[in-house]
């Protein structure tokens, strides 16, 4: 997992899974990388094969943190199954999903 600081945007990349095993380190890593100037968080899911409900919980945690400062989370290029799950779970109301 890597982060890139791009002014008001924090970009998180190189995510292979967001599951019960990885969601907690991901959440801690992302929260730790957040700076006061960040208004947007972009999570690159193009390489993520699995995002389970725990992983979704981690993303919601980041969403709440960034929302508190008037920002938004964008999910970049998730696999169709993952994008579909976000839609079924009505999480597309929270996240801006940028399709492949």
């Amino acid at each position, binding site marked *: 997992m890597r982060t890139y600081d791009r002014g008001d945007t924090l970009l998180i990349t190189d995510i292979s899974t967001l599951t019960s095993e990885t969601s907690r380190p991901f959440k801690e890593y992302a929260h730790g990388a957040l700076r006061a100037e960040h208004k947007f968080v972009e999570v690159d899911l193009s390489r993520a094969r*699995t995002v389970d*409900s725990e992983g979704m919980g981690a993303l919601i945690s980041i969403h709440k943190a960034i929302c508190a400062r008037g920002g938004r989370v964008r999910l970049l290029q998730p696999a169709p199954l993952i994008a579909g799950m976000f839609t079924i779970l009505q999480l597309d109301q929270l996240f801006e999903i940028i399709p492949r």
Partner: protein
Amino acid sequence: MASIPTHFGQTCTQELPCDVVAASELSRGAREFFAQAGFTATESDAWELALAEAANNAVKHCRPDARHLAIRVDLLVTPEWTEARVTDHTPGFTMPEKAELPPPDSESGRGLFLIQNLTDEAHYLRGRGENCLVLRKQRSPTQEPPALPPPSATDELREAQRTLDLMTEELASSYESLSAIFRFCAELQGSVVSDEFIHRWLDQLLTLTESDWLVLRLCDRSPQQLRLVATSAQAGRCEVVCREIAATAADSIEAQAASQRRDVWFDASSPLAPKDPLRQLGEPGCGFARPLCVNDTLLGVLSIGRRDGGRAFNAGEVSVVQTFGDFFGLQIRSTQMQEEQFRSRLNLRDLEIAANLQRTLLPEQLPSVPCLTLAGFYRSAREIGGDYYEALPTADGNVLLVMADVMGKGLPAALFAFMFRSLVRARPELASRPGEFLAWLNEHLFPELDRAEMFLTAQLAYFDCQRGEIRVAGAGHLPMLVARSTSEVQEIAAGGPPLGIFAAASFPEERFLWTGGRALMFTDGLIEARNPGGELLGLDTVRAALAEAARGDESCDTIRHRLARLLQEFEQGTPPADDTAFVVITRTSAN
């Protein structure tokens, strides 16, 4: 994960330790298995996610005392469908028909929703020591599994046997319970549940689940009491189980199951309370109590168990008990409804009979009597009552007027009124001595009235036309009103006790000369009529009406209409609570 092809599909079994890392490895391993079995990437991804959710739940909710036990996953792939079974050691939960989503900003609570959306079927079988989540999904018809490396013959045999055992266990339990239920349904064919049916049903359940004992209690009128209906007929132990228990008793798992509407388990680690009635079975060992409910209505509790040393119930056996319990609950409810319908039909028939009796009690027309003119009025309330009046001419040209009111309504009241009329007609020679007549009637009615805890009030008035004399005797009845002149209305009470109160009673007689005017005999329905405000019509109003009628020299019919109109105008449509009967009497000639 090793993949084992069999003659009907490919299977894979994995046992993992209870931690999230192992759960993730499991779902990744399962993905590889599915890929080898020819699944598309999307299909494999979906199964990986579903199994990840299932394994996460098994790990997160594992009982603290079972963390050392492995979580087992069995996968089975056939050309048509895929099945996964995840056996956990959690306290278990009730699988909702359709899981609901939590609020969007909630960070948890989406696992079941995901599982249900990723599979075609999701069932959760609950057992005492373990539970099993069964997931199934149809396969795409276009997929062809690729050739797999040949497994060793030993592996193949072992895995095939394991899969066969799994399928046999489920099929056997499903088949046995379904076939038994169908058989019982065919036997019942709409008839009510009999004791014989219950006992055969219990025997069947004991055999199917290899249980040692079974206790069935049903709610007895009130859901607060559970009455013993049957136990397993083993070693005569059924005789010692409590006949009745309170559904709220804290020291009984049957009562807990009833009050909490959920299965309550016991075993060596959570034994029965010292005072639990099931302890009377000897050494209850392990088992559970299941409430029998239909639409949240508690019907009873079924308890089943094995004696000490017996193994714990597995998920399949629990499922059989639950299925039988639910089926039996439906049968009990169906029987109750049939009985309610039968009682309802009986009540209707009862009312029909009572109405017919009531009609035969009242004279179609009061007889012509030389010295009197009579006009009768009768109005029934919603239910059939026991009001009765009659005019019986005597052989010497006089007449006995009878007015009676049986306490209560329905068939019993009508029957007693009928009995009273028969007795009155049996002794016409007593007509001229109404007090003595009432004493005789009381003597003959007392045993039956006393047994039925009923009584009746009556008034007898003998009109001696030759002498212009009236002899009146009453048994707890309202007074007779006599308008002797245009301004005076006299009450003739002549009171003794109601009939049926004392085995032997005397009834004073009042005699007076009546040369003219109007008289009225009536039941309490007349003066106890109510208006919409709940006020009573009252005796004074009736007296005033009779006095006014006498002043106007009104005829019998006119007075009857006056009183009927008075009732109608006073009540203003208020339904009468009681029957109303009255007879207006005028003297037409003096001898």
